[in-house]
């Protein structure tokens, strides 16, 4: 999860920018904080060796009784594919294939993502994103803030392509990322989301958050990492979208 850098991106608003510059004078540079994160989660060499992964995550809508398990496949092609079953809903699939993202569910049917939503998904699929963040974002340190009692540096990421600002919080003490604030752009509208990351665990030489708790629209979604297999051979056709998605791509 964290390896994808944590998903979103951001463009600095005019409001934030002046503060960002002032903060940069007193606080560590964003690049230092981001690079430290790479080091504390395994180091550049470990990331360099890491060329594919299959992650299994258990999810739960807290207090709603809705649970499921998702498996995500990703590799250095920057393609990705996830599938899983959610109780009461059914099979969910989503993916990124050669720069086009999509999803398919029994609720909304097959659909292609467009615009900022597609840009976000493509960025999220960028493999080993923490190592390559400079290709995806510019970053600025914008403050120091407590996250659940832990002093954290705030780093605002500005996306190099379209998308909304994203703020990451890194523990001053451990260097680990503890929280993300982002705006998801969807056809249904913009949704503000914050996620806390905790319980980092080693999987094949890299530290991954064992628990992510996302809050959005009054809901709480808890994601528990069950397993991460690294450097597994994933056949290229694993990333090929299902037939209905291909038909939409051809339309």
């Amino acid at each position, binding site marked *: 999860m964290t390896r994808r850098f944590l998903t979103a991106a951001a463009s600095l608003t005019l409001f934030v920018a002046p503060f960002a510059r002032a903060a940069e004078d007193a606080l560590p540079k964003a690049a230092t904080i981001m690079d430290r994160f790479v080091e504390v989660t395994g180091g550049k060499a470990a990331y360099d060796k890491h060329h594919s992964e299959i992650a299994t995550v258990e999810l739960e809508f807290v207090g709603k009784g809705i649970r499921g398990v998702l498996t995500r496949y990703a590799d250095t092609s920057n393609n990705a594919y996830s599938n899983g079953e959610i109780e009461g809903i059914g099979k969910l699939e989503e993916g990124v294939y050669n720069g086009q993202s999509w999803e398919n569910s*029994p609720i909304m049917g*097959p659909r292609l993502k467009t615009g900022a939503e597609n840009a976000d998904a493509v960025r999220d699929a960028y493999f080993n994103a923490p190592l390559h963040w400079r290709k995806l974002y510019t970053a600025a340190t914008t403050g120091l803030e407590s996250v659940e009692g832990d002093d954290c540096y705030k780093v605002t990421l500005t996306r190099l392509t379209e998308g909304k600002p994203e703020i990451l919080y890194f523990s001053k003490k451990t260097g680990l990322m503890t929280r993300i604030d982002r705006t998801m752009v969807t056809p*249904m509208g913009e949704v503000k989301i914050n996620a806390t990351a905790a319980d980092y665990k080693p999987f094949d030489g890299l530290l991954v958050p064992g628990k992510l708790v996302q809050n959005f629209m009054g809901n709480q979604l808890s994601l528990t990492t069950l397993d991460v297999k690294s450097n597994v051979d994933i056949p290229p056709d694993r990333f090929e979208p299902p037939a*209905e998605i291909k038909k939409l791509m051809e*339309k």
Partner: protein
Amino acid sequence: MKFVRPSAALVVFSLAATAAGLTQEQRKLNQQSFEYAWSTIQKVMWNPMPAGLDWQKVHDEFAPKIQSARSMAEARAAMQDMIHRLKMTHFAIVPGGIYEHLDLSKSGDGATGFDLRILDGRATVVSVVPTSPAYTAGVRPGWQIVSARGVNLDDIIRDVSAALPETTSKPLLLNRAVSAELEGPANQKLPMEFLDGQGDRVKLSIQLTPPRGNASTFGFLPTQHVWFESRKIGQAGYIRFNLFLDPTYVSNRFAEAIKSYMRCDGIIIDLRGNPGGIGAMSMGMAGWFIDRPGVRLGVMKTKENTLNFVVFPRPETFHGRVAIIVDELTASTSEIFASGLKDLGRARIFGSVTAGAALPSVFEKLPNGDGFQYAIATYISEGGRPLEGIGVKPDVPVQLTREALLAGKDPALDAALAWIQEKGNSQ
């Protein structure tokens, strides 16, 4: 949302109890109820308070009235007055006994096997599952239900009707109150009295059976039974399902049906009695009829968020006529679906005005035992009109009558078929 098993006697009791003076404890409970209702409205209101209301001033005006109320009726009237200041539907205080009648959670796992509507103030059978014991016992559409377990349903209809505000969702709540009397454990025999087609009294003991359809669960919601049916009628495809739930089952059956009707002149989607379910399913299903990306059925607005109900076109879409049949029990996701396709010029609506309950208006029990209804959001259909408290107005109004039921007719379906047939004839 905590419901208790109702009893007709409670209605009488609650009305009688209003004459007695209030104890200190009752006063305290009324005060708590008032504070809960006031603060809940402040919390959920999606717009600034309507009509320029200063909600704090409203609080300060009514709090002393609740404190000094000499009876439950007086306290309730003060709370109702406060809520009326909003001038909005779906905000109400109902007496405790009436609230108990609106409980569906008490139902048990047995059903009568027939569906009912309140026609001319009487509970009337509108359809009977052919394989049900009720059908075997001779119950037919058009029969009126006089009583169940010795409880006179006319009394319930009268009492509940008098207590509820005049909103589009009143028929839905009335139906719920009556239906609740007809449920119980499966295999239990339910003594009932009917008026048949000739007006003769018929006493029957109807064996309750598990409800029609597949048991479906979604989170902590109670188990619900979901069914889906489709068939071809002439050159029209006909689809009916009872809930927007169990997406794997309903969406897949819907997809199979639409694909098999691609060459038909039209498709009829019968949403009568469908109270909705998972709202987002409307977006996926509408995608079978719209081939333009970027259009939406409408927009939902809560205090915190604005959510567009966007249509996601399928790879292959249906281009023939689409008729949607609705009635006063069509609610929530069904209304979002019907209204959106109507506003987009993609469907013609037949039947009667829907429940105007596009969003879950929550019904809660207050500390003093009364019921408190409030809406948590508003929904504006693509045509610019809200659905809450207004409902979907049919393009072709068709009222169901007992006479039509007794004659074995379905006027709304006939009207939809005629419209599709008209298209076939013009080709």
